[in-house]
C-alpha cells in the first residue's frame, strides 16, 4: 500500500482546531492515518504551510456552457497555449481552459476538489464526459432545478411530497451533488423573452413567485437531508440596487429547518454580483455592508464571493435574460442556449477594466464581503470562474484578503470609485492562514457536507497541499511571495499520491465524481413516477429510458447517501 | 455548342441517404448520385431524351452524368446530389474558411453526345492517375 509522510510542516487544519502547529501528516491507502510504515515516501515540509487540499464549491469547468465558451473564444485560447508534457496532455488555458488543463491548473494551486456549479439535467452526460476528462481532482456537479417544469408544477400545486421525490429522482438521474437554482422563474420567463423582477414577480404560465420556488426547494432539500444546502443564484443579478433582493432572498430560508447537524439552509453564490447598491451602473456602489450585516446576524446563510479579476474573461451563467442584458450593454458576441423543460444559459465575453468606475466598485464589493462577514466559516473564496475571472487568479485574491497592502496597491491602480463607493480603504482586517484555509477548503468542504474533505484528521481523504511559504515569518508586505507560493504548490497530494511537485504536474490520476443518492419512500416514489412519466412522454424530446446518466459516464464515483438511501 | 448556362446546386437526398447506408458500391447509391436534375423546359431546350447523358461543366472541371426532370426546379437551376460525380466539377478553394462552395456555382449543361457516365471505379482510378 502506498504511504506518504509530510513531515515538519506548519499545519493548518481548522476543522480539527490545528492552527499552524508543526506536525507530520501521515497518509496511507488514500486516507490520513496515525502511523505509516518505515520506508514510506517522505516530503520534507519544513518551513512550509501544509493544508488540506483546496475545495472549490462554485466553478464552471464542465458541460455545455463552458464548452460554448471554449468554442466561441479562439482568440482567448491563443494567449495561453499549453504544450503536451511528459505526463500531461496539451490544451489551452486562460478564461475557458480545456478539461485537461483545468485539472492540472487546479492541482498546481493545491486544489483537489472542484464543484461544477450548473448542470442542465438533459445534458448531464456532457458534464460527466467532461468531468471524466478533467484529471487529478475530485469533482461533482450541481443539478439545475429552479426553473424545471416539474419544480414549477409541484410548487404551483403545493405538492411538496412529489417535489421531494422529483428532487431525489433528478439528483440520481443526473448524478448530481446538489440542488442548483438560477434566477428562479426568470429563466422560465426568458423562454418567452422576458424575466422576473424580484422575489415576488410572476412566473408566467404557473402563477407562482420566485419566493415560493426558493422556499419550496430549500424545504425539500433539508427534508431529504442533502449534504449541501440549496445553491442559489439570486434574482436580479447584475441590477444595481439588487442587494435588497439578495437580503430578502436569504430571509426566505430563515425559517427552514436545517437537516440534522448543519445550521445553514441557503448558499448564495457569487454574491458580489448581487450586492450592488445605487440605482444604475453610473452610480453603483457597494451593498456589501448591508449584506454582511444580515449574514452576521443570521447563521443560516453562507455565501461565496464571485470576486472580480481585471482583464478579459468569458461570462457564462444559467441566467439567460441577464446574459441578454449583458449583450445589449456590451455589443460583444452573445450565445443563448435554452434547455427544454429545465434551464437555459448564456455566454458573453466581458472585460473588467480597472479604470471603469463600476468595475472597480465590483472588485471592491467582493473583497469587502469577505472582510465584513465575521464568521469565516460562512464566506468562501471564488471568482465564479470564469465569470468574475479565471480560477487561476485565486492566489491574487488570497493576497488581497491576507494583505491590506496588496489591496491598497491594487486600489491605487484602479478607478477612484473603489475608494469612494466601497468602504474597503477603511478596512484593516487581514485574513490569517487559518482563515484562508477555511475560505478555500475547510469551510467549503463543510458547506458541501463532504466529510472526507477539507481537513487532515484521521480518516480524511489523503488530499493535501504544501505551500512554500513560512507562516511564522511571513509579513503582509510580502504578498507577492504569498501569491507565488499559492500559485505553484510545492506539493499537491491527491489520494495519497504526489501529483504536483514544485508547481509541476508529475502524475495525473483519475479523480472521483461525487454524487448524492437521495431516496424517498417507495410509495411516494411510485406515485411520483406515474405523474412524472406521463408529462415526460408528452413534453420531452428524448425517451425517458435514454435520460438517466449511466454508470459508464463515471469512471470513478463516490456516492453520498441521503433520505435514507444506502450509498 | 448547344449547352445552357445553369446555377448548380448540390445537396442531400433521401435516396442518396438510403443508398449510402447500403454502401457506396451499391447500385442504389450510385444511381442516386450520378444524375443531375433539371427542369422540363431546360431538358427540352437541350433536346434531351432517353438515356443519353449530359455533360456538366464548370470553370473547374466536367463530368458526364445521367439526368432527370424535376418540376420543382426553376429554369436555369440544376441540382446535383452530393457525391463523387458532382465533386468532379467543384473547386477546392475555400477562401480561407475551410468550406468549398458546393451550391450556387455557374455551370454549363450540354448533351454528352456519345459520352458515357463514368463508373465509381473509373472515378477512383482517375483520382489515382492524377498524381502523374
Amino acid at each position: 500500500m502506498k504511504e506518504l509522510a509530510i513531515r515538519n510542516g506548519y499545519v493548518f487544519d481548522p476543522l480539527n482546531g490545528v492552527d499552524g502547529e508543526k506536525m507530520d501528516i501521515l497518509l496511507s491507502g488514500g486516507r490520513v492515518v496515525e502511523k505509516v510504515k518505515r520506508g514510506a515516501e517522505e516530503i520534507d515540509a519544513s518551513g512550509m504551510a501544509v493544508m488540506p487540499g483546496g475545495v472549490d464549491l462554485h466553478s464552471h469547468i464542465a458541460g455545455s456552457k463552458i464548452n460554448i465558451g471554449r468554442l466561441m473564444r479562439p482568440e482567448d485560447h491563443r494567449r495561453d497555449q499549453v504544450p503536451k508534457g511528459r505526463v500531461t496532455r496539451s490544451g489551452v488555458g486562460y478564461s475557458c481552459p480545456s478539461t485537461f488543463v483545468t485539472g492540472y491548473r487546479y492541482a498546481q494551486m493545491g486544489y483537489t476538489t472542484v464543484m461544477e456549479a450548473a448542470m442542465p439535467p438533459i445534458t448531464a452526460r456532457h458534464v460527466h464526459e467532461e468531468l471524466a476528462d478533467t484529471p487529478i481532482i475530485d469533482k461533482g456537479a450541481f443539478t439545475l432545478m429552479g426553473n424545471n417544469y416539474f419544480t414549477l408544477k409541484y410548487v404551483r400545486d403545493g405538492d411538496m411530497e412529489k417535489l421531494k421525490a422529483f428532487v431525489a429522482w433528478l439528483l440520481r438521474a443526473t448524478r448530481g451533488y446538489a440542488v442548483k437554482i438560477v434566477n428562479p422563474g426568470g429563466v422560465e420567463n426568458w423562454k418567452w423573452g422576458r424575466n422576473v423582477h424580484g422575489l415576488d414577480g410572476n412566473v408566467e404560465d404557473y402563477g407562482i413567485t420566485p419566493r415560493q420556488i426558493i422556499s419550496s426547494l430549500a424545504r425539500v432539500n433539508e427534508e431529504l437531508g442533502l449534504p449541501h444546502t440549496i445553491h442559489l443564484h439570486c434574482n436580479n443579478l447584475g441590477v444595481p440596487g439588487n442587494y435588497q433582493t439578495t437580503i430578502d432572498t436569504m430571509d426566505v430560508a430563515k425559517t427552514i429547518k436545517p437537516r440534522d447537524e448543519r445550521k445553514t439552509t441557503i448558499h448564495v453564490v457569487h454574491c458580489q454580483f448581487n450586492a450592488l447598491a445605487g440605482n444604475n451602473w453610473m452610480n453603483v456602489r457597494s451593498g456589501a455592508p448591508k449584506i454582511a450585516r444580515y449574514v452576521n446576524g443570521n447563521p443560516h446563510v453562507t455565501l461565496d464571493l464571485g470576486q472580480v479579476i481585471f482583464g478579459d474573461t468569458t461570462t457564462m451563467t444559467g441566467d439567460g435574460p441577464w446574459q441578454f442584458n449583458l449583450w445589449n450593454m456590451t455589443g460583444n458576441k452573445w450565445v443563448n442556449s435554452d434547455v427544454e423543460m429545465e434551464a437555459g444559459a448564456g455566454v458573453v465575453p466581458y472585460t473588467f477594466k480597472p479604470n471603469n468606475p463600476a468595475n472597480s466598485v465590483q472588485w471592491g464589493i467582493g473583497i469587502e464581503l469577505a472582510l465584513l462577514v465575521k464568521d469565516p466559516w460562512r464566506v468562501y473564496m471564488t471568482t465564479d470562474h470564469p465569470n468574475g475571472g479565471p480560477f487561476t487568479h485565486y492566489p491574487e485574491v488570497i493576497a488581497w484578503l491576507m494583505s491590506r497592502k496588496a489591496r491598497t496597491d491594487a486600489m491605487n491602480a484602479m478607478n477612484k470609485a473603489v475608494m469612494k463607493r466601497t468602504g474597503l480603504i477603511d478596512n484593516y482586517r487581514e485574513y490569517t492562514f487559518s482563515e484562508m484555509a477555511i475560505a478555500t477548503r475547510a469551510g467549503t468542504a463543510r458547506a458541501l457536507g463532504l466529510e472526507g474533505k477539507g481537513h487532515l484528521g484521521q480518516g480524511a481523504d489523503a488530499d493535501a497541499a504544501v505551500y512554500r511559504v513560512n507562516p511564522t515569518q511571513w509579513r503582509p508586505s510580502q504578498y507577492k511571495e504569498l501569491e507565488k507560493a499559492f500559485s505553484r504548490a510545492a506539493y499537491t497530494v491527491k489520494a495519497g499520491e504526489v501529483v504536483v511537485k514544485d508547481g509541476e504536474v508529475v502524475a495525473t490520476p483519475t479523480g472521483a465524481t461525487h454524487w448524492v443518492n437521495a431516496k424517498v419512500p417507495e410509495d411516494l416514489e411510485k406515485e411520483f413516477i406515474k405523474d412524472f412519466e406521463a408529462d415526460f412522454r408528452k413534453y420531452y424530446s428524448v425517451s425517458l429510458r435514454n435520460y438517466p446518466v449511466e454508470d459508464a459516464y463515471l469512471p470513478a464515483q463516490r456516492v453520498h447517501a441521503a433520505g435514507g438511501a444506502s450509498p | 455548342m448547344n449547352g445552357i448556362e445553369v446555377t448548380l446546386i448540390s445537396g442531400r437526398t433521401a435516396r442518396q441517404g438510403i443508398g449510402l447506408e447500403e454502401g457506396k458500391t451499391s447500385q442504389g447509391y450510385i444511381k442516386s448520385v450520378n444524375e443531375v436534375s433539371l427542369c422540363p423546359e431546360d431538358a427540352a431546350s437541350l433536346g434531351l431524351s432517353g438515356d443519353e447523358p449530359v455533360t456538366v461543366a464548370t470553370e473547374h472541371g466536367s463530368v458526364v452524368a445521367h439526368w432527370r426532370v424535376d418540376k420543382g426546379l426553376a429554369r436555369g437551376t440544376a441540382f446535383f446530389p452530393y457525391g463523387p460525380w458532382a465533386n468532379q466539377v467543384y473547386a477546392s478553394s475555400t477562401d480561407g474558411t475551410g468550406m468549398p462552395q458546393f451550391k450556387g456555382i455557374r455551370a454549363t449543361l450540354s448533351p454528352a453526345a456519345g459520352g458515357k457516365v463514368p463508373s465509381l471505379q473509373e472515378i477512383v482510378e482517375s483520382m489515382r492517375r492524377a498524381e502523374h
Partner: protein
Amino acid sequence: MDKLVLTPRGFSRVPLEAEVITPDAFAGKSVKEIRALRVHYGNREVEMSEYIHVQGKVADAPVDQLIVVDGDARHIKYIGRGMTAGRIVVQGDAGMHTGSQMSGGDITVAGDAGDWTGAEMRGGLLRVLGDAGNLLGAAYRGSSEGMTGGCIIVNGSAGSEVGSFMRRGMMVVEGATGPFTGVHMNGGEIFVFGPLGRRAGAQAKGNGGFIAALGGAREVLPTYVYEATYAPGFMTLYMRQLAENLGVKHAARYIGEPLRRYRGDMAIGGSAEILVAEKGAP
C-alpha cells in the same frame, strides 16, 4: 542597413514555419547563432540552416537589419511575424501570415503573398507587389481586433475578407478585392483601385471607417444607403499622400473625382462609409 541573405532550399510542400525571420530575432547575433535558430517543419523542430542558407551581415539593432529572402518562400509561413523594426524583402512569393501582428519596420514581397498576410497588423509598412491572398490584414477567427495600425499596400489584387474587423490603419489594394472587403469594419481606411468585391462593408459598425472604391463597385449591399455625391477634400489629401509618399502613382488621377457616398451597414445601425467613384458606381 546591414544585409542578411536567406536562401530557402530543399523542402517540399509541407510548410516551414519561420517566425524567427525578423530583424528583432536576428539583430545582435552571430550568423552562426542565426543559422541555429529553430524553425518548425511539419511536426519537427529543426535548425533554420537545415532548410535556409544564411549569409551576410548582422546588424546590432533590429532597426538597421535588412533581411533579403532570396528565392521561393511560398511555403514559408510567418515571415516577419510580430516584427517591430528593420526591413524584410522577399524576392519571390511569401507564404501565409507574412507580417502578421507586425508593429513596425517594413516588409516588401516582390511576388504574391499568402492568406492572412498582415493579419492583426499593429504598425509598420507591408507592401505586396503581386497579389495577396484572403484575409489580408484581417482579424484571426474569433477576434474583434483586426488591423489596428500601419499600412498595407498591394499592387495586385486581394482575396476575400480583406481588412476584416479593421480598427485603425490603412490598406490600399491597387487591383480588385474579393467579397466581404472591410467586413465588420470598425475604423480605418481601405482604398481599392480595382473593382471592389461583393458585399463590401458587411456588418461594419463604422466608427469613422471607410472603404473608397475608386475602381468602382459592381454592387453595394442593399443595407447601405446612398447619401450624396461629392468630392471630399480629405480624399485629395489621401490621394496625394498615396501618390507622393507611398508610391501609388495613379492615385493622383483620382484627386477631385466625384464619389457616391453610401452609409451602413444599416442592418446593425452602422455608420461606415463606402465611397464609390462616380464612373464605376453601380
